[in-house]
């Protein structure tokens, strides 16, 4: 397993006194899709939120251990979390476009923060990002409309475009289709597969079919522990751990 993009080393995380992650060592490969599955409360969302330092925004949240992004520990005191979040983008469970901004500005917002003004280049980045998110054709005439005026599935693709606009290296997705209907979900899934050409993707899902359809690697977590990690094929066809087997066969979850 060469070519590791982002990696957790002895990662523990807590909310208050409750431990949410226990000694997680997991490596995510570049330009691949890694799915993180497990029953509710197993820590999978907490895990990916440690990968771009979103975890620490929750009051009472603590962590120990390291996250290495290109072998640099992102929790090193000299590292600015803002820079990490630009390199490691995130798509959330519920589509959350900025309601006070137009579709255009939703995509451009991150770049404007970095100082890019409204120039030709910005227009191109917005167009490119919306194309990458397979949303351009549906919204190209409505760029001035509010980001919340489109359908839920379109909003989620808008959120993906918003992340892409910053040209991140990694895109984290926290159950990106759980609030969407099956058709919208299928579109997002196809998009996720497209994204791995240019980005490293980690996707949290509690939909096992989704994990098996889109991912190259799968991690199974349970009660804050990483139970098993391997190629998606291995995990789903010949799991080594009994817990994994019971989970993917739907015995519990």
């Amino acid at each position, binding site marked *: 397993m060469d070519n590791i993009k982002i990696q957790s080393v002895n990662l523990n995380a807590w909310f208050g006194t409750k431990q949410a992650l226990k000694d997680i060592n997991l490596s995510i490969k570049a330009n691949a899709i890694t799915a993180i599955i497990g029953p509710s409360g197993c820590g999978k969302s907490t895990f990916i939120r440690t990968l771009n330092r979103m975890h620490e925004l929750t009051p009472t949240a603590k962590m120990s251990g390291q996250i290495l992004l290109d072998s640099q520990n992102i929790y090193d005191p000299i590292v600015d979390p803002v820079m990490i979040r630009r390199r490691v983008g995130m798509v959330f469970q519920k589509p959350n476009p900025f309601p006070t901004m137009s579709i255009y500005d939703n995509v451009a917002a*991150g770049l404007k923060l970095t100082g890019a003004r409204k120039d030709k280049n910005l227009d191109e980045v917005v167009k490119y990002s919306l194309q990458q998110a397979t949303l351009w054709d549906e919204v190209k005439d409505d760029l001035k409309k509010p980001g919340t005026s489109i359908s839920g599935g379109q909003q989620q693709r808008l959120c993906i475009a918003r992340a892409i606009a910053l040209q991140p290296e990694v895109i984290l997705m926290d159950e990106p289709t759980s609030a969407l209907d099956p058709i919208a979900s299928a579109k997002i899934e196809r998009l996720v597969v497209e994204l791995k050409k240019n980005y490293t993707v980690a996707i949290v899902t509690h939909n096992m079919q989704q994990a098996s359809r889109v991912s190259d690697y799968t991690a199974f977590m349970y009660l804050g522990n990483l139970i098993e990690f391997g190629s998606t094929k291995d995990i789903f066809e010949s799991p080594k751990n009994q817990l994994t087997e019971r989970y993917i066969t739907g015995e519990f979850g």
Partner: protein
Amino acid sequence: MIKLTGDNIFKVLVAVIAASAIVILLLNTYVLITGSANVFATSGFGFISGRNWNFDIPSFGVLPAILGTLITSGIALLVGVPLSLGIAIFIVEMAPRAIRVPFSYLVEMLAAVPSVIYGLWGMLVLRFWVLDYIETPLNTHLGWFPLFSGTPTGYGFLTAGLILAIMIIPTVASVSREVISAVPNSIREAAYGIGATKWEVIRHWVLSYGRSGIFGAIILGLGRAIGETMAVTMVIGNASGASGMPVSLFQTGQTLPSLIAGGFFDSQTALLSSAYIGAGLVLLAISLLINVAAHVMMTRVLKVKGGAVE
């Protein structure tokens, strides 16, 4: 015939109570209009545009007091709103949980302080701070500038405005705090997710999302500032008539409420008391006008554009 069920009785009762709010407003207005008919008949529009307050001629005009009201309220907003927003942002976005609740409670306690106490404090303490640290230096070095001209005494528009600024803080801060807490966390997370700093999240997202609510909070504060009587009367110096026509921030003057409070009970003639009632009518009109204007602004400007404007 409506049946006398409990529900129906309750419905009528609530309707009557609700209507009483409107009736009180109408009665108020009626009393002010009939009471001031005398002075309007004598002075006409001059009552609003005039500067004199003279019992002998007699000639009555409330322009200095109108301007005094607007100036002191303006200072109150200019100083009080940033402070209140700072407090609200601190409480919601930054304060550790342990001090969040006691701190908001303390801020709201400011509203429980009777206004006469603010007035006393203004006369005994704030007045001298303003005189020594703001008025005297500005007057010494920039006295040629009309706003800073005159002979500073510590009494006047500036001190009154600053007292009002403090008095509107609990209102503006606690309403803004509610508004800011109501901003969905998903918006904050999305903004952090694209690499926004805390300052950027607050400035571009939290305040932008909550702007119509914050605007409402400011209007509530303005309402309080315009109507505040006791504390203002105690520190504004109550210069009556043309001498209260504002030129400098440091000069003494009047607001509409302080004018009424300061003189009404000594009014000897029917015309004079009618003039004070007229000042009350103007004050009510200004308050209503600002509320209506604010409402229009809130629905037209903020909401319509609210969908898609940065």
